[in-house]
């Protein structure tokens, strides 16, 4: 739910409650006012009745107007000295034969005149008056409803107007990419809070960017600087190996050191490659026939495929030509195929390749379990069997991202499948 929708909703509920309460008060206020008017009239009638009784006039004759109901009866002694106002309703059948309740107000009083006590009830129909009350209330309700609606519209308009810098900021942060070295520019606003928010975000993103750049430079420099010492170590080791008077243990130690150095170098090479892709250093593009690139790759890796007796199943349904960087394509295919071979079964495994117009998939049998989706394309996702540090998948992902392709991974009954949508 949007912020101003929510605000509006609460305002709407509050207004409704407040106005209902207001209508209730107004309604009763009007009614009591009307009652008081009626009561005044009733009291005037009362004094006329008393006057008439004192003069010996039959009270019935005093009221030719039938808008009053009048009853009088003689009682032995006067017991009530106060006026009793009551509200009641009289049943009346109207023209349409519908029972209607007609509200009426009555005054009951007792009086003594010429040693005779009387109890008098005067009733006045409130029909007209309650109609007026109802009309007023209806008008008020309509007015209030219109007000609420208009308020709602105004609120909406103001909200969207006031919050627009906020939404602008939000959309800009959303599309902000740390890798693009861009500074955020926000809409000018005269609202202090938004101004503060924008300034804070600006400072924050700038700080993050600076840190990111430093970290990136550090990694880059680190891997570049590491190259030379690594070369030196490996050539020194090679020279050391040329000596002949070693025992078996020394041979083993030398071999292991050398092997570890090579691994470290490969790793470093992978990191440099990742950085170079990130820095868009593979801009050159050639038109490459994917089908033949795949065939070529299979041929190069033939020895390893044969060594594990892996069956290659091809479904090449397309001779599609893609505009890609040849180096990146080579790295991509290399990593996909090497993974498919390396982690395949030692015997009777297969690799299935499907190439369609805009889609390439490679699946392979493997004793390995499903790769954790979250770890899938992470750097240094250590593989339990080979013990190699997995830069391969990370490189694949980087290249796929570089060309805005999509890659999916699925696993089913011992078969791992990577699918690239191009």
């Amino acid at each position, binding site marked *: 739910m949007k912020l101003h929708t929510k605000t509006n909703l609460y305002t709407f509920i509050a207004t409704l409650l407040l106005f209902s309460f207001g209508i209730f008060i107004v309604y009763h206020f009007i009614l009591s006012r009307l009652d008081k008017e009626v009561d005044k009239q009733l009291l005037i009638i009362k004094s006329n009745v008393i006057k008439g009784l004192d003069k010996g006039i039959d009270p019935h004759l005093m009221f030719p107007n039938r808008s009053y109901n009048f009853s009088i009866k003689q009682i032995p002694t006067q017991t009530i000295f106060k006026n009793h106002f009551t509200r009641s309703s009289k049943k009346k059948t109207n023209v349409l034969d519908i029972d209607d309740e007609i509200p009426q107000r009555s005054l009951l009083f007792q009086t003594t005149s010429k040693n005779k006590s009387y109890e008098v009830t005067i009733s006045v129909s409130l029909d007209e008056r309650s109609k007026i009350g109802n009309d007023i209330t209806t008008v008020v309700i309509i007015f209030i409803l219109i007000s609420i609606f208009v308020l709602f519209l105004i609120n909406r308009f103001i909200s969207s107007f006031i919050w627009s810098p906020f939404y602008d900021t939000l959309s800009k942060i959303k599309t902000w990419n740390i890798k693009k070295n861009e500074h955020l520019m926000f809409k000018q606003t005269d609202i202090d809070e938004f101004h503060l928010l924008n300034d804070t975000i600006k400072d924050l993103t700038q700080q993050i960017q600076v840190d990111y750049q430093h970290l990136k430079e550090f990694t880059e420099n680190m891997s570049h600087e590491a190259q030379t010492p690594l070369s*030196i170590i490996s050539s020194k080791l*090679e020279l050391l190996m040329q000596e002949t008077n070693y025992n078996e243990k020394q041979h083993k130690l030398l071999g292991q050191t050398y092997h570890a150095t090579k691994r470290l170098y*490969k790793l470093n090479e992978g990191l440099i490659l990742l950085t170079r892709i990130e820095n868009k250093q593979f801009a050159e593009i050639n038109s490459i026939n994917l089908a033949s690139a795949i065939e070529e790759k299979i041929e190069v890796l033939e020895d*390893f495929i044969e060594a594990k007796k892996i069956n290659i199943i091809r479904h090449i349904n397309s001779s599609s030509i893609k505009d890609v960087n040849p*180096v990146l394509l080579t790295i991509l295919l290399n990593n996909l195929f090497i993974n498919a*071979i390396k982690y395949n079964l030692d015997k009777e495994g297969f690799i299935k390749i499907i190439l369609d117009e805009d889609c390439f998939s490679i699946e392979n049998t493997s004793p390995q379990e499903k790769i954790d989706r979250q770890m899938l394309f992470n750097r240094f996702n250590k593989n339990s069997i080979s013990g190699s540090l997995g830069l391969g998948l990370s490189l694949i992902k980087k290249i796929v991202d570089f060309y805005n392709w999509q890659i999916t991974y699925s696993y089913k009954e011992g078969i791992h499948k990577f699918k690239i949508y191009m």
Partner: protein
Amino acid sequence: MKIFVIEDEKSLREDIVEYLSVNNYKCDVAASTQIAIQKLKDNIYDCALIDIGLPDGSGIEIIEYIKNHNPKMGVIMITAKNALEDKLESLKIGADDYLTKPFHLSELNARIYSLMRRRNFGGKNALSFDGLEIDTGEKKVIANGNILQLTKKEYDILVYLASNPTHLITKEALAENIWGDKADIATSFDFVYSQIKNLKKKLNEADLKNYIKVVYGLGYKFME
């Protein structure tokens, strides 16, 4: 044979010189473009190894100088980068061969060996040992007068080993020589091992002496 090593990294320069000196190559060294060009004016070399990332300008200048003044000299370029475009670039400039850091010293040696053969004998030279002759032009191996049937991989391994006689060749270097970047694949060492085994068997069956010696845990050696 005189080799000119132009490399600014002192340690690496010394290693190259030391490794190459075993093959009776005479080495001269330079650590910068300026010194290199100065030395090229006064001396004649058979082959130059040029590191492209020198402190005072790229090694490309030196290659151009050599191509203009002494085109007979072989040029092997060394770079720290490792992508295809560098390779194409370097060959365009006029280098005869190309190596990326870190390279195996044995690989460098084999490249020089092959370059020198191509340059001096028009590629028709043969590596000759006692009872064993490797014709690198025809890609033929003759053992005691008979042609020895080898697979392409076995032939490549034999040439590589024979180009580095008495040097220890690590299995990593061999694997990389055969498959390049793909060499890190787990099975490659086993593959090298089985290829060597077959090769040894074939040499043995041809009544040759045991040329290939296995150095436990490290690699192989071609004994003259």
